[in-house]
């Protein structure tokens, strides 16, 4: 456990906590500009959060402790994931306690908490959202683990720090078929896990098409603020993880000096990825719920091919 590691992990949590609403703001702004609107500016999510946090906390009739606990668990798992994942440093003190499997399971725990909260409201929409969310979760799982499998095969470890470091040392691996196929597969996974188009529409107002939004319909005030903040953090963590698995340059090792540079580079990488995602969404429509398995099956094929290539193409 080094000093740089502890400082780095703290920096990661702060960066994700403070920066994720900005990322969401940036993505909305990109969409707005491309659709010909002026857009509210990148700070709008922060303003929304501030507004929501000042409001009164509500306990809707017929909801129980699970409903109140879920936003905390969602945000808590996202924060722990932010501390574990190599975002600006590969020397996080928690790096040894969780690998890629554990991180995905941790994020799944947050999703499960929210799904239970959706069911707890006893409304039709809450149940619908929960039901759809767990279907997506269940079908995403094989792709995630297969991509992890492919990426870890050449390193011999599923530790995130080890995978990122090995890519740093051997940059030519990035354009290998294994990496490319796994990247495509993981990209679909990130989109599905964060509820972006074409799996889910984050800005929909039509309840029947909702997945994520349907579960959080009953939240208001600070609860809603926490849920929105947590969703933004999950998006940032997953995009950051994606960026660092396939383009880790700029990440700090065990040195304090590199940290500020790493923070800036990370912000740029995630902003670029988020901007691309938002730009892509402008041209896309949401898939029907029952076409989503096809998309996920497709990403699963990519992941299997990546695993096969990692073993057979060497």
């Amino acid at each position: 456990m080094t000093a740089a590691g502890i400082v780095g992990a703290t920096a990661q949590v702060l960066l994700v906590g403070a920066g994720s609403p900005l990322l969401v703001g940036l993505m909305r702004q990109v969409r707005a500009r491309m659709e010909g609107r002026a857009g509210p500016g990148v700070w709008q999510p922060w303003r929304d959060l501030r507004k929501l946090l000042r409001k009164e906390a509500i306990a809707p009739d017929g909801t129980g402790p699970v409903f109140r606990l879920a936003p905390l668990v969602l945000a808590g798992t996202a924060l722990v994931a932010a501390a574990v994942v190599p975002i600006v440093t590969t020397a996080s003190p928690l790096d040894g306690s969780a690998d890629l499997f554990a991180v995905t399971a941790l994020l799944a725990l947050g999703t499960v908490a929210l799904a239970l909260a959706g069911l707890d409201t006893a409304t039709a929409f809450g149940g619908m959202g929960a039901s759809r969310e767990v279907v997506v979760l269940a079908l995403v799982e094989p792709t995630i683990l297969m991509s992890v499998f492919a990426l870890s095969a050449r390193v011999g470890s599923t530790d995130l720090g080890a995978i990122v470091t090995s890519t740093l040392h051997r940059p030519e691996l990035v354009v290998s078929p294994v990496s490319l196929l796994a990247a495509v597969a993981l990209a679909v996974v990130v989109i599905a896990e964060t509820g972006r188009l074409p799996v889910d529409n984050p800005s929909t107002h039509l309840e029947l098409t909702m997945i994520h939004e349907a579960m959080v319909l009953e939240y208001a005030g600070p609860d809603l603020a926490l849920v929105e903040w947590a969703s933004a953090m999950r998006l940032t963590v997953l995009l950051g993880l994606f960026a660092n698995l396939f383009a880790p340059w700029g990440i700090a090792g065990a040195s304090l000096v590199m940290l500020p540079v790493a923070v800036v580079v990370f912000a740029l990488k995630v902003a670029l990825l988020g901007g691309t995602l938002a730009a892509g969404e402008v041209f896309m429509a949401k898939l029907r719920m029952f076409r989503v398995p096809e998309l996920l099956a497709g990403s699963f094929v990519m992941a299997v091919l990546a695993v096969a290539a990692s073993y057979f193409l060497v």
Partner: protein
Amino acid sequence: MTGSSAPFVVALAAGLLGAVAGIALPRRVRPLGAGVCTAVSGAAGVVAGVAAFAGHPWSAWLPDVVPLAGTRLAVDGLGGLFIAVTGAVGVCAGVYGIAYCRPHGDHALDGRAVQAVTPLFLASMLLVPAAASVTTFLLAWELMAVASLLLVLAEHRHRTSVREAGLWYAVMTQLGMVVLLGGLVGFAAAAHGESFARLREAGRGLSPGVRAAVFLAVFVGCASKAGIVPLHVWLPRAHPEAPAHVSALMSAAMVNLGVYGIVRVGFDLLGGGPAWWWLLVLAAGAGSALYGILQAAVATDLKRLLAYSTCENMGLVLIGVGAAGLLDRAGARPLAALAMTAALLHLVNHSGFKTLLFLAAGSVVRAAGTGDLDALGGLRTRMPVTTVLFGLGALGASALPLGNGFVSEWLLLQGLVKALGSGGTAVAVTMPLAVAVVALTAGLAVATFVKAFGVGFLARARSEKAERATESPRAMLLGMSLAAACCVVLALGPVSVLPGIARAVRVVVPGPDAVTGPVTLRLHGVASTLSPLWIAVALILVLAVLRVTVMRRARRRARLWDCGMGPTSARMEYTATSFAEPLQRVFDNVLAPETDVDVTPLAESAYLVESVTYRARLGDRIEHRIYRPVIAAAAWFGRVARGLGNGSVHRYLGYGFCAFTGVLIVLAVTR
């Protein structure tokens, strides 16, 4: 007998005493007496098991207990592990049974048969892993089967479905027994001796054909006990009908012994085998895991759901066992040890959370009078402790962090992922598929237990029965809490059982311990680490910080918004069926649900609808496709055979006469 066998003797004696108590005590104190004896027997079993895998193996030879063959007992690390697990389940079930068996409404289990047989069942299960000869093993096995059958039939007077379930169970378990008997007796004949020590010596030297036949027979016999698809059909029938503490004993302890048989014979006695054995085990495990969890995901009966989840988890264990066999064969000892450790740890974890879940489900059924998820809901206010305990078990079963299933599935995945580079094409093609199966299973398990917990315990009651539910008595809560405590210990400090599992693994795959480290798990020869404790600490810290910073203000009660529609009624809620509908649709090809929609138009016009009826039925497809034709054929044979007997005594005597003279003629011709 040596001194260290004393706890085991105590366990068996307590079991017998319990049986006597169950018969002799008056009805009022009968559950108490039998329950305490069961718990004591279980506790002594735990001590005996722990002593065995802490390095005090023992053996005994009792020539007079069974005529001709005698009884041979030996407890090593592997047997000790299974004895300890069975004992722990027995403690929880025994304590729970004290209150559960008392009369409650129209439900009473304090009859002599149930009370006397429960401790015997536990004792017989403790005896199976201690057996060290074919006769002893088969006797204990059969005793266990008969005892469990009697217990499944406990409530046959209340429901006719119990009889059907009992019949299925009896047929499956006895067929399994026949196959197992054939395999082991054949093995003993080929090895010229029936003690396990003799079999171990001779096992490697037998001809490949004999070895394969023995392995296949043992595999089939044990797989039917472990509930492996397609031999699982008895499981989802027997569990919903059996009393809850019996379900827990069967699903958390008895099925384990199926795995024990496969590991004991396949690894220990036969000394490993060709790759196809283990590929078969792995494939059966994978199929069982996937099919089990799919059926669990769409099941609406709580206990049926848990039963299918048992198929799933035993499948996962067999994936680990199969992988261990393959890797051992390929010479990758450390990885084989890792896979075996993962399999056994998962088995222990499964016993923990499945005991808890079945006991909690029993409380729900007792309190609400139904286990149908579509009629439950809202139990969190009326049964708070049971809700929290079931939640803990569900967390373990869905393999999420903070739950105990997570650690073992993580180990299993590590074993499978690392196996890719060692062991040729068969391994290289199998492992990615196995990982995909484990992953999909984990995902579906999450969906299943979100459904079980969210629909069953949260939200609002969907029926009056569920509204009238009340919290269970203290002894039941204590039984469940014991199981829950085990789950928490296993989840946060798997290191508490890993040394014991390492000893068990060493019996079958010699070598250094696969998993070490007090807090952070380090794998031997694999550069991956995990520390469940640190994850939990970090998560709880963060939760506490968020709680005091963001959520500090008091809440105001308000009406549910529900998009401005309200007020909502329980009929508008999502049910278990509707929750699982998307999954059912995605896996339509596998599950093949039968749905019919009848639209009745109004008399005046064909375009105006008067009513729509929708009926959906989801059966077990394997049962339909494989078992129904077999049963139909058997029934046909029975009908035809009935034609032989028309009631005429002369005819019957004639059959006897013909057979007798026929035999004489054959003798005359062949001699």
